[in-house]
């Protein structure tokens, strides 16, 4: 039984697993931008409670679309998506989004708000008392490795790396059980990126959370992912644990490994 669990899951097995224990479940989901242009074909995928699932693929493979379907920024053309056991149609979209942290590559900080207001916005509209918000903001700034003195600054006064730390802190503000990250470190320089990746891996606040992480960077996928879903042209190609991914003989997986070999061969021991 244990041995079969480690093997790539077939669609049938996945469907069997689509019980309420999956934090997020896609059931034959397709998304069409218009009638002739399908971005996602028939995706069936379960994200387990507490795992970090990496959606890996190149530009246009449908990974960002998959992510945006989870918090209902996009609506599926067909199929069903369940979050915490409930179909998206049964959710109040606003409630759903407030329990799903969302981090994007461009960060999207509110330029007219201070860092403090940016991080504290969801708690504020959720009517937390003011003291508790301030305390939470300070705690989060420390957690993501920022000086609490930055609280009163504006986003434009921060570096790219600092801004993305704020983006992560903002997504964590109301302690959501699910986190969605769309290439959060993609726009950063390699050193800052590596640092933030490692910090994210060890982030205390990430514990117990279900994370879906979009990237095109295999190193990042191997570092952070419990499992890796490889997408290509809107289809799920393989769904593997990290170890399986490194052993897989699937041509696309091999192509990925070859493309990244000079990098990750030296780094594997550390991860």
């Amino acid at each position, binding site marked *: 039984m244990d041995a079969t669990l480690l093997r790539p899951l077939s669609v049938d097995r996945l469907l069997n697993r689509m019980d309420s224990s999956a934090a997020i479940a896609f059931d034959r989901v397709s998304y069409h931008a218009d009638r002739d242009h399908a971005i996602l074909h028939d995706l069936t995928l379960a994200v387990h409670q507490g795992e970090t699932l990496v959606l890996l693929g190149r530009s246009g493979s449908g990974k960002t679309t998959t992510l945006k379907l989870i918090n209902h*920024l996009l609506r599926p053309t067909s199929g069903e998506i369940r979050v915490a056991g409930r179909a998206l149609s049964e959710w109040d979209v*606003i409630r759903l989004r407030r329990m799903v942290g969302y981090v*994007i590559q*461009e*960060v999207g*900080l509110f*330029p*007219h708000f201070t860092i403090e207001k940016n991080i504290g916005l969801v708690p504020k509209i959720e009517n937390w008392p003011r003291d508790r918000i301030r305390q939470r903001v300070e705690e989060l700034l420390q957690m993501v490795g920022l000086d609490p003195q930055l609280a009163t600054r504006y986003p434009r006064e921060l570096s790219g790396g600092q801004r993305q730390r704020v983006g992560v802190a903002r*997504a964590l503000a109301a302690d959501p059980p699910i986190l969605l990250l769309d290439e959060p470190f993609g*726009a950063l320089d390699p050193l800052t990126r590596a640092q933030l990746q490692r910090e994210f891996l060890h982030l205390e606040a990430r514990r117990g959370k279900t994370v879906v992480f979009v990237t095109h960077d295999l190193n990042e996928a191997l570092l952070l992912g419990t499992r890796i879903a490889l997408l290509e042209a809107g289809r799920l190609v393989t769904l593997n644990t990290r170890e399986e991914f490194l052993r897989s003989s699937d041509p696309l997986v091999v192509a990925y490994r070859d493309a990244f070999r000079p990098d990750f061969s030296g780094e594997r021991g550390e991860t």
Partner: protein
Amino acid sequence: MNLWQFILQNHAEVTQLTLEHIWLVGTSTLLAAAIGMPLGILLTRWPSLRPPILGSANVIQTIPSLALFGFLLPAPWIGARADRLVILALVLYALLPLIRNTYAGIQSVDPSVIEAGRGMGLTDRQLLFQVELPLALGVIVAGIRVATVLSIGLATIAAAVGAGGLGEYIFRGLAMVNNTVILAGALPAAALALLADLGFGWLEKRLSPQHARRSSSASATSS
């Protein structure tokens, strides 16, 4: 008699006409803002409304002002009083810059900021009032600025239909072939326009979220 003497001798009348002028322009610009801003917001929500609304506002702008007064004259409640007539005409002229700038201001907000806000679970209302409008305010004020300066000029024609304002002197001066009287109307009107331009220009600068522009350009270069 030179201009200063004229103005000093008639300072009560000059003040009154100036106040009338400000009343006409102020009321009409406020009304235009009350109509134009919601319309501009509407256009960002329903893009299919763009051609008819912007098109109509554009067409109105092309109607010569005297002709517009003439068209509105037979209207029941409006035509009964000259100031109502002029205010309505000024509102119609001011709509275009207000609709267009509200729309453009909201459209110019960095899409990633909107996406992040939506993804965090802001409602449409919260997104509009806490994010989009504050960030668009500088551009909206620029629209109010254009509308006000335009109206101050146009309102001088209000005297043609007897609605008062500084145009009184201009028309009187034309009839008397007296440049001093013309200038007594034209100069204060020009001064008002200049003041409005400077005032709103200052406000525009203060309200433009420089942080928005700088941070978005910074993230663009780093990616």
